């Protein structure tokens, strides 16, 4: 109690940015706001479970300090997310924030977090805005920039010689990033169909696809949207003459579990895969399965890495999280071992890393799951970094 009172008195007396006199915190607080209900819930749940698994392995500590993770559901609604973030920042005074799935929500919440000089470690949303002109010292993305996985699919589709591709994506910032990413590496003819974010009935779009007769279909529909789309695509009899391509978001364990065998033969891209051969990943996949009795998705790997990243940075600054400049340096240094293998942060705080091609098929145990087929990009950076003037 006396310790907490002293800390309180110190906080009241000292302007928080007198960095020279930063004390080590006695506790690290993390505000985790994510989509935990509705059609996008699968994504948020996986990020949360990955994060929690890392916390468990770290003994509930970040950088050797006891940690508290406060979780809130944003219901895939930017207003709800903003309220939750405000509470985390003003009332709980969290040291880190993470968890947001969707880019439109990230863009709504970001300004408040940055104004408050709180570090946001994105375990998913990687909008182009924060990679380019609006890049911010307090924003890190431990996963990817939105365009990246789509760029990788674009490259594959281009290399395989497809000439006429239809793109289906929701009408929101992440969807726009998907289209520009895909087209950056695919140079043939395209047509785009934009759907509502959260749409579940694709009858109208499927009829358009049937009429357009593309060689290949590229769809970016995360979570429940993708589950419904693939199911309806198959039941409309379209899978017979159209090859499906997707970023890893629309073809990971959450979708495979719900759709099953019709997913087989689908190509997709990812920066991580559960069959990657490194010690950290093997431990992560094994323990995730033990804890939650299902295979982890890329979202789970991102949540896991976000926790490891916070842990390493807090340890680096010896718990003095009030020294923002030092903490930023520690985060940039990236001293944790990611389950995706080695990567580093670019000057805009987005990863420079490899991207892989995966195909869905049956594994040795007869499960329908992803198998890594090869590398699409090596040490790939995003396209917006040159527009970022990090202050």
């Amino acid at each position, binding site marked *: 109690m006396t310790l907490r009172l002293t800390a309180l008195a110190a906080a009241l007396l000292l302007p928080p940015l007198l960095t020279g006199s930063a004390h080590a915190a006695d506790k690290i607080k993390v505000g985790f706001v994510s989509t935990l209900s509705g059609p996008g819930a699968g994504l948020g*749940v996986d990020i949360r479970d990955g994060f929690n698994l890392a916390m468990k392995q770290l003994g509930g500590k970040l950088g050797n300090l006891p940690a508290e993770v406060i979780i809130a559901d944003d219901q895939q609604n930017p207003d709800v997310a903003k309220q939750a973030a405000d509470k985390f920042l003003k009332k709980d005074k969290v040291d880190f924030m993470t968890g947001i799935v969707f880019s439109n929500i990230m863009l709504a919440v970001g300004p408040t977090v940055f104004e408050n000089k709180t570090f946001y470690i994105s375990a998913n949303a990687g909008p182009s805005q924060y990679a380019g002109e609006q890049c911010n010292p307090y924003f890190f993305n431990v996963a990817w920039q939105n365009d990246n996985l789509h760029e990788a699919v674009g490259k594959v589709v281009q290399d395989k010689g497809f000439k006429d591709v239809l793109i289906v994506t929701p009408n929101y910032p992440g969807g726009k990033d998907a289209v520009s990413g895909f087209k950056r590496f695919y140079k043939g003819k395209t047509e785009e169909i934009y759907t509502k974010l959260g749409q579940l009935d694709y009858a*109208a779009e499927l009829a358009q696809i*049937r009429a357009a007769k593309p060689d290949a279909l590229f769809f970016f529909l995360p979570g*429940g949207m993708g*589950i419904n789309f693939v199911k309806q695509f198959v*039941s409309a*009899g379209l899978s017979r003459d159209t090859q499906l391509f997707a970023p890893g978001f629309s073809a990971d364990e959450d979708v495979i579990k719900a759709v099953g065998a019709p997913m087989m033969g689908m190509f997709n891209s990812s920066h991580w895969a559960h069959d990657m051969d490194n010690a950290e990943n093997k431990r992560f996949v094994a323990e995730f399965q033990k804890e939650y009795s299902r295979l982890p998705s890329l979202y789970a790997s991102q949540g896991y890495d976000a926790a490891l990243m916070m842990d390493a940075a807090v340890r680096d600054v010896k718990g003095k999280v009030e020294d923002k400049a030092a903490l930023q340096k520690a985060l940039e240094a990236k001293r944790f071992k990611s389950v995706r293998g080695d990567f580093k942060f670019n000057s805009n705080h987005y990863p420079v890393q490899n991207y892989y091609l995966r195909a869905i098929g049956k594994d040795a145990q007869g499960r329908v799951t992803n198998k890594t087929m090869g590398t699409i990009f090596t040490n790939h950076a995003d396209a917006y970094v040159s527009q970022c003037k990090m202050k």
Partner: protein
Amino acid sequence: MTQLILEQALNGLQFGLMLFLLAAGLTLVFGIMDCINLAHGSLYMVGAYFVAAAAQAADSFWIGLGAGVAGAAVLGLLLELSLFRQLYQRDHLSQVLATFALILIANEAVRMIWGPAPLMLNPPEALSGPVELPLFGDTFFYPAYRLVIIAFGLGVGGLLYLLVARSRVGMWVRAGAANREMTEALGINVRALFTAVFVFGAALCALAGGLLGPLLAVQVGMGESILILAFVVIIIGGIGSIRGALVGALIVGTVDTLGRALLPTLLRAALPADAASTLGPALASILIYLLMAAILFFKPQGLFPARA
């Protein structure tokens, strides 16, 4: 192009008929009892959950659908007896407040019982594939399950029409919608009639929820978005009119589906690609509201007003 339009027309019909199942109950409750029931969407949601839970327990979609619809009818009966009876005499504001509270209670209750993640409801195995339909000497594929939904919608719609337009009970219902006091004065037990109509509306909600379950997802909050469309339907059709609900539902279903499919294509022909891709989806999503505004401008009572 003919194939695209025909397929979209079938999609519009399918969506419109499901909207009709919802709007039928809503328009009767609103028209006859003069009671605004915002919780109608919650009955749809709870009905869908009942169907999904029963289908999982029985491992059969059809048994689940039957049990779910029966369950929703019982819930409707309990709600009518305990709550709605108290509301008929109150003003619209009290009804809106009470039924809005019901929405919140229903959402939280469903979240507590079934959890925040959506339930997956699969269509019967035999209906999960496409069927081949003839088209001017050619053929095209259409999902079998959507055809079944259309058949259900047409069947129930026809039955409802016969019931309301041709049967004695239907005559009472229409009389109640036109003039409640006069109907009571003629010796009809309006109170029992109200209960029956409400229960019937709840069962139709669950039927729509159960049938749409495999196409959408059974999840918390699924009722609110569709409730708005159902209100648009009954306002276009004229409050209290079954025929109006049917016509309104088909108009809304077709316009929404065709608009989503054709507007972006048409705009692309007329505008630069960038503007078209921004404007198309936005315009498609407000199209039905524009339509509602236009219809109300020319016919403020809706297309088929029940009260002359």
